[in-house]
């Protein structure tokens, strides 16, 4: 079984630019989560999709962040325009059933905004 795939693995962009991160969950996993760790902080929840619907987006920091999951398969997280404080590692996780007990995480995308 293929794991959760994220790309790019690294991205360096200038402040003000746009970046789109992609996550391919494990096939058949309806639940997809985005988390991120900014420098020196804990990993924090961003949002949760059930299929193509946003179940909980309470962790999204502001309206510069837009997450989509068209067709309930892969998801994208767009940051536009990027700010310095957006730098960090963005993780995606998926699970077949609802419940945080069953997460499989991807390797993450390390975003650096300069």
């Amino acid at each position, binding site marked *: 079984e293929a794991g959760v795939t994220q790309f790019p693995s690294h991205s360096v962009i200038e402040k003000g630019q746009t970046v789109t991160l992609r996550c391919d969950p494990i096939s058949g996993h309806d639940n997809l989560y985005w988390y991120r760790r900014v420098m020196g902080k804990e990993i924090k929840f961003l949002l949760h999709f059930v299929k193509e619907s946003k179940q909980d987006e309470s962790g999204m920091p502001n309206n510069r962040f837009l997450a989509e999951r068209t067709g309930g398969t892969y998801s994208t997280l767009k940051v536009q325009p990027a700010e310095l404080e957006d730098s960090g590692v963005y993780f995606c996780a998926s699970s077949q059933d609802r419940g945080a007990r069953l997460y499989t995480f991807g390797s*993450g995308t390390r975003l650096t905004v300069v």
Partner: protein
Amino acid sequence: TQLLEQSPQFLSIQEGENLTVYCNSSSVFSSLQWYRQEPGEGPVLLVTVVTGGEVKKLKRLTFQFGDARKDSSLHITAAQTGDTGLYLCAGGRSYDKVIFGPGTSLSVIP
């Protein structure tokens, strides 16, 4: 605001030694997970505990959930260099999202 604290923050031990790391909160969690993360990788789930007082064993790793479901410990017996990594605890109150602790960075020296 729910917070999970982990101690120690850093731990460096010799191969073969035993160690315990702790995860504490003032909040009650419905479940608590332990993850191990290696550089450049995402967290990998080790165990989930859900019942107060529960003890789970995974080879040389022993996990315990506190009776009040506010704290947990991870004990490693006879540490090996392959145990090196960042150990994260994560607690869930709602059915989906979890709160992560800051992690304990473990280094096992040959």
